[in-house]
């Protein structure tokens, strides 16, 4: 049994600092390669819509990076604090919509509008989490779901200039010059890359602070953490507010990449897909969540193209028809992952660390910590 203290000790000991130089070099190389991607016009077969530096490919890559960043923020709540949120799209969507709507107000403009939007998202994140954290366990999940639904309904009906079903785009001349037009897609791509790096670094630091260790203790056993003298509610509120505000920032960048906001990012389906990204990659592992976000978005966008390709159209109807729906493949894939690989892809790809001598209670890194449902006692247990 892991005690909160052992989690804390373990994490301090196995902090990234002690990992090999090789790994750091590999991460640096990956970042440099990603940053240089817009300069290559190599064609990766049918993997991307066009050459790497074409606008279509860069936009797809940017969307993948934004999704990865958003999944990382959800992982702080879901994977690290044990708070399963089915309403993360509320904050992502709110950040996105409020940035666009406020920027379109002529007296504000983009710079002020974006800052104001993030501040508003912070307030909404604080209030939303304060309300939903009144419930624990599954009740929390459902409260987040319901709150997110309020935004989805509001956006669908076009309240507050949100444009209804078609969404809302930046007005003419609202976005700063470098982000306008297809020729400048590379700038949006770099912005998305910068977002991912910033969000990842912030979350990486956050889960390594003392508060971050308390979050993980809460995930393992909320009751025991409370008995140790920590105010569980306050720490959960902190984790939720940080994660949701960062998600709002991701939404703001999304609006720049897409040139506006659309209702597809506020519906329940989007919240669920964020949860799927984290669970797919591996909850409780930040890079796992990022990987899940990249993979999910890629499949979601590219499977449609795949279903039009000659190999698929030649298949019999029984196989071909389901393949036209990316969500069908993703859903089935996800069930298989849950059944056979509950710790996500990170458990396969992760470099398993050998348990230290004398530490028998340490799980291998691959076995991602699973939020302990028993932390919340049964109603009548």
């Amino acid at each position, binding site marked *: 049994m892991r005690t909160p203290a052992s989690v804390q000790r373990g994490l301090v000991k196995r902090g990234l600092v002690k990992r090999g130089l090789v790994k750091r070099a590999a991460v640096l190389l990956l970042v440099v390669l990603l940053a240089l991607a817009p300069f290559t016009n190599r064609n990766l077969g049918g993997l991307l819509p066009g050459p790497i530096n074409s606008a279509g490919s860069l936009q797809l890559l940017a969307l993948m990076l934004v999704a990865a960043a958003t999944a990382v923020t959800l992982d702080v709540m879901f994977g690290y604090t044990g708070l399963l949120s089915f309403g993360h799209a509320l904050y992502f969507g709110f950040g996105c919509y409020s940035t666009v709507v406020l920027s379109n107000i002529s007296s504000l403009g983009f710079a002020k509008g974006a800052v104001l939007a993030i501040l508003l998202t912070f307030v909404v994140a604080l209030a939303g989490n304060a309300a939903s954290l009144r419930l624990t366990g*599954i009740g929390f999940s459902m409260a987040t779901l319901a709150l997110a639904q309020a935004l989805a309904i509001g956006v669908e009906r076009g309240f507050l200039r949100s444009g209804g079903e078609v969404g809302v785009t930046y007005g003419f001349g609202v976005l700063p010059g470098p982000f306008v037009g297809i020729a400048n897609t590379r700038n949006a791509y770099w912005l998305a890359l910068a977002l991912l790096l910033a969000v990842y670094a912030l979350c990486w630091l956050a889960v390594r602070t003392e508060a971050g260790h308390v979050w993980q203790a809460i995930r393992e056993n909320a009751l025991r953490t409370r008995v140790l003298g920590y105010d569980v509610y306050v720490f959960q509120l902190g984790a939720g507010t940080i994660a949701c505000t960062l998600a709002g920032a991701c939404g703001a960048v999304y609006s720049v990449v897409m040139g506006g906001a659309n209702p597809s990012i506020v519906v329940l389906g989007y919240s669920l897909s964020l949860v799927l990204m984290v669970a797919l990659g591996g909850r409780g592992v930040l890079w796992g969540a990022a990987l899940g976000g990249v993979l999910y978005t890629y499949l979601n966008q590219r499977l449609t193209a795949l279903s039009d390709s000659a190999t698929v159209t030649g298949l019999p109807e029984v196989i071909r028809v389901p393949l036209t729906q990316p969500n069908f493949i993703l859903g089935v894939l*996800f069930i298989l992952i849950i059944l056979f690989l509950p710790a996500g892809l990170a458990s396969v790809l992760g470099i398993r660390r050998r348990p230290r001598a004398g530490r028998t209670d340490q799980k291998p890194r691959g076995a991602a910590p699973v939020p302990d449902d028993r932390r919340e*006692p049964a109603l009548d247990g």
Partner: protein
Amino acid sequence: MATFILIAVSGLGLGALYFLLATGLSLIFGLMRVLSFAHGAFLSVAAFASWLVLRSDDSPSTWRLALALLAATVLGGALAFVTELAIIRPLKGRELEQLLATVGLGLALVALLAAIWGPDEHLIPRTQWLDSTSSVLGAPIPHTRFLLIVAAALVMAAIRLLLSRSRYGLIIRAGVENSEMVSALGINVKRSFTLVFTVGGMLAGLGGGLAGSYYGGVSPYLGDGMLIFSFIVLIIGGLGSIVGALVAAIVLGLSQSLVNFYVQNGIGDIFVVVLLVMTLLVRPQGLLGQKERLV
């Protein structure tokens, strides 16, 4: 006044639909601690089944309507039965994984419906008597509303009978209290898990059949929209409480319809969320939910 009664009865009908879905989910959660996200998809699949039965006839007979509802109920139950055996049971004791698996299943099923029949709505022809109205206190009430309310009342009565009079009901009630102890006494709890999950699927299926006739059409996304409001009904009523679900469904259906009509379309849906937040602030365990014990 007539308008008010019409809207109020329509709200009750809507509440009846929420109740059908929510009561199954409540039973499942009470016994198995699993929240199923797949039941919305079961509802949609069942609604499509009723459409397949009804579509050939412009004005289907009552028997055909009954057949459609039966087909929807059976299909919903069958889907839930297979799901329980294939996905829920292998993940026994891991509630989070079970929940996530139902999310994946819901996604896949809805996508499959959209792949086969397209994402758009298909019209369902109504039986003649269902299309006409009766006067209640001067208000013309469409018969679909009565159908929904009667169906919900019958389901409520049947569930209560099942729980209070049958041996399985006894096991379920005991399992809600402490399922480990029940299995320790040598009773096969697994079987009642399957039973409850299947009953939940049947109720979702019946809800799908009725919703198709109520709205006059089906789309793959019908169930997902209803699932969200059923979840809200569950929280307001108190997780695991069937009477709570009934009360909450009535309150929700009424207030949603009335506010949508008298204030502005769409505000009623948001008002429901406000009700939820107020419930969370004042009484987090829901109207009739039990307070969680710490140890």
